[in-house]
């Protein structure tokens, strides 16, 4: 079942078509990646999904029903990219306050916060003020306040920026845990290696429009260019044949691109016939980064202002 469906969503600002007809489905319990270069419209899209902006047209379906910001925000946890905390407030009080705004009772909020603080080794923070925290520490606190009320849908915009590898892993594990326990995570970023690691399904947006949508594995398959890497003992300089083109060659490594119609076994047969001893033979799939750059490249790096 889809926890979130977006149909032909549009939001125009005075000088930009920030979101220009995006549709997408997010399956319940999945980790979903929303990718795009800076200024692609990711934040505007997320702001509509979280009820901060009203769309100009289009439809948002949350849990099978029309999205009602008033009620449904209590089931959404949103950690925006532009995030902060009340600097002068005590950390415990602040977490309770933010949880109460999400509809939790004070007592309920307190026990949940204690639980999370214990889990992430933050117990000693309770009576400290936010201004005493480092950037990474306040990031952790922000993550806790985002997921505290057990939201069904968790939206994280660049959640790892400013975190050291240890804390980033800690948060990553929690994201997996939350997904395992049934929450859906939308993960917005332009850091491809994180997406490759975490997400099952991705949508790529550029200039307010969706340009790619699918399972991560399928997308990689779609974009594969039949490139294989071969490791061998000694590779002769001259390998003239009709099966493949040579992309790159060193003493023991060969990168080849199969020609139309060539099967991998044909290639293996060829090497056996040539009496070249292979150590390994494997397919090279494009990294998401390459796909991303390939698709976005050629479009202007920064969005231009336009008349609407």
């Amino acid at each position, binding site marked *: 079942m889809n926890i979130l469906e977006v149909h032909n969503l549009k939001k125009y600002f005075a000088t930009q078509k920030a979101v220009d007809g995006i549709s997408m489905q997010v399956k319940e319990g999945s980790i979903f990646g929303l990718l795009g270069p800076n200024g692609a419209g990711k934040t505007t899209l997320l702001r509509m999904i979280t009820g*901060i902006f009203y769309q100009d047209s289009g439809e948002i379906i949350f849990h099978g029903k029309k999205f009602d910001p008033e009620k449904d925000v209590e089931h959404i946890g*949103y950690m*925006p990219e532009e*995030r*902060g905390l009340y*600097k002068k407030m005590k950390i415990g009080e602040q977490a309770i*306050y933010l949880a109460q*705004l999400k509809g939790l009772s004070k007592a309920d909020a307190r026990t949940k916060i204690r639980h999370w603080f214990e889990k992430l080794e933050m117990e000693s923070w309770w009576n400290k003020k936010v201004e005493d925290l480092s950037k990474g520490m306040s990031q952790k606190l922000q993550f806790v306040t985002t997921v505290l009320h057990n939201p069904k849908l968790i939206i994280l915009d660049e959640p790892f920026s400013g975190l050291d590898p240890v804390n980033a892993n800690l948060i990553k594990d929690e994201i997996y845990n939350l997904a395992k326990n049934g929450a859906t995570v939308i993960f917005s970023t332009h850091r491809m290696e994180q997406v490759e690691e975490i997400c099952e399904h991705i949508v790529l947006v550029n200039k307010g429009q969706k340009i790619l949508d699918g399972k991560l594995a399928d997308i990689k398959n779609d974009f594969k260019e039949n490139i294989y890497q071969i490791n061998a003992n000694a590779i002769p300089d001259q390998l003239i044949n009709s099966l493949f083109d040579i992309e790159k060659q060193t003493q023991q490594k060969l990168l080849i691109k199969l020609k139309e119609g060539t099967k991998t076994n044909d290639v293996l047969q060829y090497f056996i016939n040539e009496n070249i001893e292979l150590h390994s033979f494997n397919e090279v799939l494009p990294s998401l980064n390459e796909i991303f750059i390939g698709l976005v490249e050629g479009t202007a790096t920064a969005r231009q202002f336009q008349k609407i």
Partner: protein
Amino acid sequence: MSKTLLILKREYTTRVKKKAFLITTIMFPVLYIGLIFGTGYLGSRAKQKLDIALLDQSGYFTDSSLAAVNRMDSSTLFTSVTDTSIQSNYKKEGYDGYIIMPALNWQTGMKNIKFITDKTHGSGTESMIGNKLNIIWSEMVNEKLGIDTEKKTVLSSSSISIKEENEQNKNANSKVSATIGYACGFLIYFILLIYGSQVMLGVMEEKTNRIAEVVVSSVKPFQLMLGKILGISLVALTQFLIWVACIFLVYSVGKYLGSGNAVASALVEGIQQSFASINLPLILVCFAFYFMGGFFFYASLYAAVGSAINEDVREAQSLSFPITLLVIFAIFMMTIAIQDPSGPIAVWGSIIPFTSPIVMMARLPFGVPGTVPVWQLALSMSLLIIGFLFSTWVAAKIYRTGILMYGKKPSWKEMLKWAFRK
């Protein structure tokens, strides 16, 4: 609604718990009283002493008459001189200036006799010197006309004066009314200015802490704005009530202690009498209404400005200046309204919501319906309600866009665009 209440509670408790609240609550009355007495004290102390040489060619300004004038107070000291060299060496001899009194006709006198100095002393000094010399002069004229001391007393004390009595409101005492009007108007003025900017800075809090987007993903921007304005207004009200309670306490203690003391009991009686001449319950109810109404009206405008600016306080000042100007303009209208509480400026100023909280409060002590007809009061009140609903609505629209904007400072034109687009 419960979320608005939560925000209100946080705004209120964090503010009241701050040391700054305690300090301003104590310091404001102390400073205010200090300001009034301090300037009075300084004013009385700072009067300068002038040594003036008088070269009399008329023969009317004798040494004894000058000595009599010198005894009146020490601000000027006239010394009679005879040598004309005073014109060139008055400074060397320690005088601040000199006057050459020409030979005069006692029946016509003379205007604009020159007081020569080497620095400007201003019109106050000019008229003071003139008055003192005129005392000697008129004494002489009286003598020449044959007016004796008895006739002189009649001349100076016998006069008539006029006192207005409004037939719809016979108790009205225009002096007491004006004083109370001034007090109410200025109180609202101070509270608007002080807490208006508090609201503006308070609204900036979410922006400077970059928490705005987190908060508006849980509550509607309107709820956030309303909670903030209400919370800060309750802080203002708390502070105000503390002051009122203190005044009441001082008054009661004074009344109790002064029961044996003639001066104190006369004072207390005077206060009671002046309050008897006005409709106190009406004034209090109206004060509460205009206090809150005016506060919400201006607070929402300040909130709109606060949401539109970034961390920069200088931006805040330049954008909020037009609003502050309106409040100051209202105080000007008020001073005119107190001089002439039924005049057109007073009437219109007390009806238009931008100025009505201050101007109407200045008019009301003069009496309803004597000075302020009931229809004017009703119109003013309903317009203020409509006004603050409208300003809150506009502010909410600006706030919604402004609170998520970072970077560029918007112009007033852009803010109006945010307010009136769908």
